[in-house]
C-alpha cells in the first residue's frame, strides 16, 4: 500500500494543532469532553500501532497486548503515586519496562508459531489482571481498589484547560512514535521484519537473524503499547485491574484488522474506529429501541458485531485497504472509456 501523501499529512497535523484552540469560539463543538474523546482515540491508535508492528509487519499474532498496556499503565501509576515522578517522565520508564517484559516473553514465543503463539499471549492477557491483584504486590498496585491519580495540569501557567493540555501532550507523543515507527520500517531493520513475515525460511537463508528480530520486535511492540497504557493512566487518572481485561486485547485486534493490517495510517484509523464505534453502537442501539420504537432490545455489542461483519464484508483489507482499492477503481474509471471497452474483448478471448 502506498505511503500517505506528505501534503495531506501536514494539513492534518496543522488542523490537529489549531482546532483545540477554537474552544473559546466554538464551545459546543470543541468541548473538553470531545477533546478527551480524541485523546482516548490517539491513545488507542498508539496501542494499535504497537500491535501492528508485531502482527502486521512481523507476522506474529498477539492476543496479549492488554497485558503490556496494563504493565505500562501500572508502571506510570506506581511511579506517580509512590515516587511523585512527573507524568511525562513516566513514559520512557514505562517503555523500557514493557520492552523488557515483551522481549522476555518473546524468547519462549520463538518456539511458538501462529495459533500457538496466539494462545500463549491469550494466557498472558488473562494472567496479568490476576497478578496485579496478588497480595505480595498489593502494597504497590493497590490490589483490586486500584490507584487514584491526578490529571496532568498545564505547566508554566499556560492558559489551557486540563483536557486541551492532555490532548497536545498525547498528540506530540503520538507524532513522535509514528515518525519513529515510519523510519524504522523504512530502514534495513524494517525490511528484515517484513521479510520474516513474508517468508521466514527465505529471510533466514538471506542471513537475517530471525530470532533476534522477532524478540526485539516483540519488545518494541510491547513498548509502544506500554506507552499507550501509561498515557491512559494520565488521561483516566485511575488504574484498576478491571480496566485491563482480556476484551481490551480483542479491541486492539479489531482496531488493527478494521484499520488495516500492515499499515501505519490504518493503525490511526483503527484507533479512531474502536473508540467511535464502541460509543456510537450504544447510541444506535438506544436509538433503535427508543426513537424508532422497534421491539428489538439490541445490546450495544450486537450492533458493534453487525457493523463489524458488514465492514469486513465490504472492506476485507480494512478501511485503508478498502479506500485504496476504491481510489484505484475511480482512477481507472476516470482514465476513460478505452479501458472499459477493452474488457469485453479480453473476456471474449477466454472462451
Amino acid at each position: 500500500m502506498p505511503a500517505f501523501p506528505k501534503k495531506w499529512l501536514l494539513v492534518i497535523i496543522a488542523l490537529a494543532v489549531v482546532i483545540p484552540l477554537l474552544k473559546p469560539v466554538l464551545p459546543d463543538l470543541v468541548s473538553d469532553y470531545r477533546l478527551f474523546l480524541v485523546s482516548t482515540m490517539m491513545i488507542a491508535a498508539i496501542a494499535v500501532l504497537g500491535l501492528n508492528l508485531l502482527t502486521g509487519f512481523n507476522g506474529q499474532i498477539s492476543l496479549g497486548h492488554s497485558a503490556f498496556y496494563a504493565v505500562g499503565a501500572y508502571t506510570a501509576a506506581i511511579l506517580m503515586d509512590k515516587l511523585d515522578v512527573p507524568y511525562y517522565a513516566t513514559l520512557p520508564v514505562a517503555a523500557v519496562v514493557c520492552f523488557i517484559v515483551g522481549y522476555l516473553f518473546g524468547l519462549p514465543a520463538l518456539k511458538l508459531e501462529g495459533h500457538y503463539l496466539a494462545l500463549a499471549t491469550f494466557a498472558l492477557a488473562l494472567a496479568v489482571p490476576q497478578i496485579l491483584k496478588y497480595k505480595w504486590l498489593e502494597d504497590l498496585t493497590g490490589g483490586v481498589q486500584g490507584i487514584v491519580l491526578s490529571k496532568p495540569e498545564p505547566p508554566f501557567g499556560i492558559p489551557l484547560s486540563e483536557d486541551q493540555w492532555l490532548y497536545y501532550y498525547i498528540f506530540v507523543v503520538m507524532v513522535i512514535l509514528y515518525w519513529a515507527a515510519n523510519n524504522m520500517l523504512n530502514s534495513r531493520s524494517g525490511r528484515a521484519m517484513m521479510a520474516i513475515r513474508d517468508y521466514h525460511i527465505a529471510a533466514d537463508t538471506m542471513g537475517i537473524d530471525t530470532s533476534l528480530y522477532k524478540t526485539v520486535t516483540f519488545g518494541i511492540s510491547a513498548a509502544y503499547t506500554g506507552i499507550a497504557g501509561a498515557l491512559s493512566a494520565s488521561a483516566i487518572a485511575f488504574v484498576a485491574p478491571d480496566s485491563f481485561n482480556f476484551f481490551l486485547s480483542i479491541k486492539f485486534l479489531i482496531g488493527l484488522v478494521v484499520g488495516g493490517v500492515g499499515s501505519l495510517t490504518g493503525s490511526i484509523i483503527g484507533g479512531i474506529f474502536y473508540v467511535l464505534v464502541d460509543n456510537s453502537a450504544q447510541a444506535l442501539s438506544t436509538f433503535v429501541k427508543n426513537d424508532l420504537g422497534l421491539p428489538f432490545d439490541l445490546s450495544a455489542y450486537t450492533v458493534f458485531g453487525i457493523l463489524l461483519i458488514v465492514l469486513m464484508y465490504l472492506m476485507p483489507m480494512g478501511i485503508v485497504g478498502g479506500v485504496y482499492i476504491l481510489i484505484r477503481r475511480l482512477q481507472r474509471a476516470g482514465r476513460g472509456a478505452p479501458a472499459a471497452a477493452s474488457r469485453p474483448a479480453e473476456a471474449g478471448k477466454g472462451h
Partner: protein
Amino acid sequence: MTTSRRTFIGGVSAAAVLSGTGAFAQKKYDNGATDAEIKLGHAGPYSGPASAYGVIGKTIEAYWKSVNDAGGINGRKVNFITLDDGYNPAKTVEVVRQLVEQDKVLCLFNTLGTPSNTAIQKYMNQKKVPQLYVATGASKWGKPKEFPWTMGYQPDYNTEGQIYARHLLANVKDPKIAILMQNDDFGKDYVEGFKKGLGDNVSKIVKLATYEVTDPTVESQIIQLKDTGANAFLNIATPKFAAQAIRKIADIGWKPAHYMTNVSASIAAVLKPAGYENSQGIITAYYLMDPNDKQFVDLPEVKTWSAWMDKYLPQGNKGDANYVYGYTVSYLMHETLKRCGDTLTHENVMKQAASFQKFRVPMLLPGITVSTSPTDFYPIQSVQLARFKDEGWALFGDVMSAEST
C-alpha cells in the same frame, strides 16, 4: 450531636414549608433540570463479567417509566440516561464524562461497581455534580468531608462483617473459624469488618481460603477448610459459589455454624439450587425483603411491587433480589427529587439527600429506615439476622445497626 440534629430538623421543616409554597417560590435550575424534565445519568455493566447486575439498570429504567406514566415528579418527566461501561473503570470515566459534560445531567444515580465509582469520584467532586446512592457495598462512600458530592446506599460490607463476628463470638463455643472469600474488594471488605468485630479473637480464624470469580468451582477450598477441623464457617461468596459451598459442605458431612453474606441470601438463586435440606440453620443478615418469602407475600407493599413488576418488567425473574434492590433505590431517589421541589440544583439535591429522618422505603425489612445527615452519608445502616428454616428465612433478634462507620 443533639444540637446538630435539632437544627437539622429545623432545616427539614423549613424545606417542607418551602416546598409547600413552591408555586410562589422562585424556580432554580442547574444543568439537567427544566420546567419539563429532569435528567438523571447512570452507568452500569450491561456487558462484560458483571453483566448479571445489568438488571439493576433495567429495573431503574422501568421505575422511571412508571413515574413518567403517572405524571412525573412535580410535573417534570424524568429522562433517565443509562450507558454501558462493561464494568471497566476506564470506560466508566468516558461515559460519565459524556453524561456530565454532553448530556448535562442533574446528578448521577446508582452507578455500579466499586472500581467504577472510585474512578469517577474525584471527577464528580471537582465538577460538583452529585454522585448519589452508588451501587456498591464498599465502606468508603460515606465521607462527606473529603467527598461532599458522593453518597452510598446499602449497608456496607464492613458493617455486616462486624455483625457476624459479634453473633459468632456470643453463640459458638470455643470457635475455630474457617473463611471462604472471593478474592476482590467485596471479599476483603467483609473479612476486614469481620476481623474488626472479632477484636482480640482474630486468632480464632484457622484458615482463609480464597477463590477467583473466574474459577469454575470452590469444592477444593471447602475440603481444605473442613480439614482444619473448624466449627464455624463464614461464606463470603457471590451466588453461584455460595450455592456450591453449601452443597459441598453437606456432601462431605461437615457441620459448622454457617454464616453467609447477604449478597447470596437469595432463595431462588442460592438456597433452592443448593437444596433446602442442605441449607437449614444458615445465618445471614438482611435489609431487603425477599418477595418469595412466605411471611412477606401478603404485605401490601410486596403486592404493589409484584404488580409493578408484572406491568413494567414482565420478563423479570421475581426471585432475583436485584429487582427489589433497583426498586428501593429508585424509590429513595424519587423521594429525594420530590423534596427538591422547584429548586433543582446540584446543591439542593445533595442537601435533600442528606436530610432523611427515619424515612421508610417500601421493600426494606420492617423496622429498617433511611437516615442521613450532613455528617452521615450512609443511608441504610441496619440489618437483621435471619436463620434459614424449612423453605425460608426466619428473622430473629432485633434490627442491628453499626455503631461506628
